[in-house]
């Protein structure tokens, strides 16, 4: 049933990556902003982000909590409307879509939540959860076919034998199995893009890798494009090795480029700090590695951002007179995009 005719590529969205011409973006965000009203003034959760998701590629969005990565993901999924900027699906602004187009977009871009305990309806069985969309959108003819297709989907996400899982309730399964059910449900819609918001962070390490492998197969075999949100750089590195990483800080992308380049040779001091903060499972490495020491451990308040570069109060390499007066733009720097006055000079 997984019929995945590669969509005719309409006018490709203007992309910044080098392979834009050969592999046009499915989903792209152009200068999106999201401002939430707060008790102490407006909170600019996302302030001008450009991203593209390409078929069969993964784009990882990394950053600390409160950096706007989840808000960005929700705008990309159409779950929240940007206060400024636009979200384009196959080159069409999703705001300008008519009902039918919108429905197509809705199904083509699927979102997997962080918490599989919350994202599955506790009173419905696996079969009922996964097949709801199939039945609703007449993708199956009758109950028997619905059951068969659901079983196929479960096998695809490595819940085997599927018969054992079809009639289970969420509370009868482990966290990893639940997350697989959530993925199977997303797959039922034949998605072209999957947005995964910290989808592996609540799972045990032992399960995390096999779930990432399952997602990786969907990406490689079905050509699904991934927008993968994580705070775990090791996971980002593993999942998006062929793709891109974008590092977000306080609502803006500060560094973005091919994964191997960004992880192995980070340039932005914030990226450097993040990578050096990872605890490696190797006692010798852990004790000899060089650490980036930040000047301030705490993130500034979004309602009261510092002048100049947002990172300068914490930045170990900040240059007085430049970083605290001018905000560095995100510009191309050799193999990546970088927003830093100091690192960008080299």
């Amino acid at each position, binding site marked *: 049933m997984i019929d995945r005719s590669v969509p005719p590529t309409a006018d490709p969205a203007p992309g910044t990556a080098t392979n834009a011409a050969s592999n046009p973006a499915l989903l792209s965000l152009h200068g999106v902003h999201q401002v939430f009203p707060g008790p102490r003034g407006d909170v600019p959760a996302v302030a001008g982000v450009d991203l593209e998701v390409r078929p069969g590629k993964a784009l990882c969005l990394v950053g600390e909590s409160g950096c706007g990565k989840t808000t960005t993901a929700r705008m990309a*999924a159409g*779950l929240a409307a940007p206060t400024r900027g636009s979200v384009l699906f196959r080159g069409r602004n999703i705001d300008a879509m008519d009902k039918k187009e919108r*429905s197509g977009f*809705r*199904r083509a871009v*699927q*979102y997997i*939540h962080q*918490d599989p305990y*919350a*994202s*599955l*309806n*506790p*009173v*419905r*069985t696996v079969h009922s959860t996964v097949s*709801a*969309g199939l039945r*609703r*959108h007449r993708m199956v003819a009758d109950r028997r076919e619905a059951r068969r297709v659901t079983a196929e989907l479960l096998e695809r996400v490595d819940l085997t034998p599927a018969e054992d899982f079809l*009639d*289970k*309730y969420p*509370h*009868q399964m482990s966290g990893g199995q639940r997350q697989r059910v*959530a993925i199977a*449900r*997303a797959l*039922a*819609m034949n998605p072209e893009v999957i947005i995964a918001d910290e989808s592996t962070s609540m799972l045990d390490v032992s399960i995390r890798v096999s779930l990432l492998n399952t997602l990786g197969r969907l990406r490689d075999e079905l050509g699904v494009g991934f927008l993968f949100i994580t705070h775990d750089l090791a996971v980002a590195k593993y999942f998006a090795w062929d793709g891109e990483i974008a590092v977000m800080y306080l609502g803006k992308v500060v560094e973005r480029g091919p994964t191997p380049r960004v992880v192995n040779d980070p340039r932005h001091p914030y990226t450097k700090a993040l990578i050096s903060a990872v605890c490696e499972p190797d006692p010798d490495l852990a004790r000899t590695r060089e650490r980036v020491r930040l000047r301030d451990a705490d993130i500034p308040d979004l309602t009261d951002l510092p002048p100049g570069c947002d990172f300068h109060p914490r930045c170990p390499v900040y240059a007085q007179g430049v970083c605290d007066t001018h905000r560095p733009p995100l510009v191309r720097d050799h193999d990546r995009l970088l927003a830093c006055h100091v690192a960008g000079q080299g």
Partner: protein
Amino acid sequence: MAVTTVASGGAGVWGAIWQGVTRSTSGFLGLCIVLGVLLFAFVGPLLIDTHNPTDVTKIWGPITSEHWLGTNHEGKDTFVQLVLGGREPIWVGIVAAVITVAIAVVLGGIAGYVRGRIDHFLLQLTDITMTIPFIVLMLVVASFYRTTSPMVVAFIIGLVTWPYLMRSIRAQVLTLREREFVEAARIQDLGTARILFAEVLPNMAGYIFINFIIAITNAIYAVVGMYLLGLLPSTAANWGLMIQQAWDNNAFLVPAAVPFLLAPMAMIMLFQIGLVTMTRSLEQTLDPRLRDR
């Protein structure tokens, strides 16, 4: 961590209800009382001789082997009246509860899920409905239509008592709609009606069921109260009517009339106590997350 999960899942809501009621002693006792009263009121009339003529020679007769609970002010057998008098209040209670709960669930669900102007309008409607004085309304209805049947009473009770439940269902739907599984259903483009009735409301099945039972008890009290106040015409035998007649004939002054006054009250209280104890032990078990524990 130490919780053992029993691998049974497909029991469904009725299985869960059964499990919930039978699990604790008090719940089971409640169920037995409820079933006992129901059998008494609905099967009882089939088993006894329901011919119960007025007999002026037996007014306020004592308890005998012929008249288990004595006779009343008209010389009718009290026990036969008691057996015949349960159907009506119980039926009224159930019908009124069905109406109340149906209106409350549908309107509360829509108001909470759709929000916006519909929500605003429905809230106004609850405000208006809540201000209707129930007793006065009954007086008016009773004075216009002398032959008010018990079902009309049930409808009126149902039509004026829904706002309280509707408001609490709306409040729960408001929080449930923000849950991630509801958002997941929206991402699947499942459609509003389906999301509301198949995803959101089943999560409140236990709450709704419990409120249904509470609505039955309230409606029974309401209808009995109305008989007691003489708002409803005297027709067939009826527990509420029995109490009213006992009251009107100063039964509390006649020692021999005590059974005629107390027996219907005891039946009503027994039924209510049974429902309430049964409900309490049901409260958790309708939630599948708690079912297997």
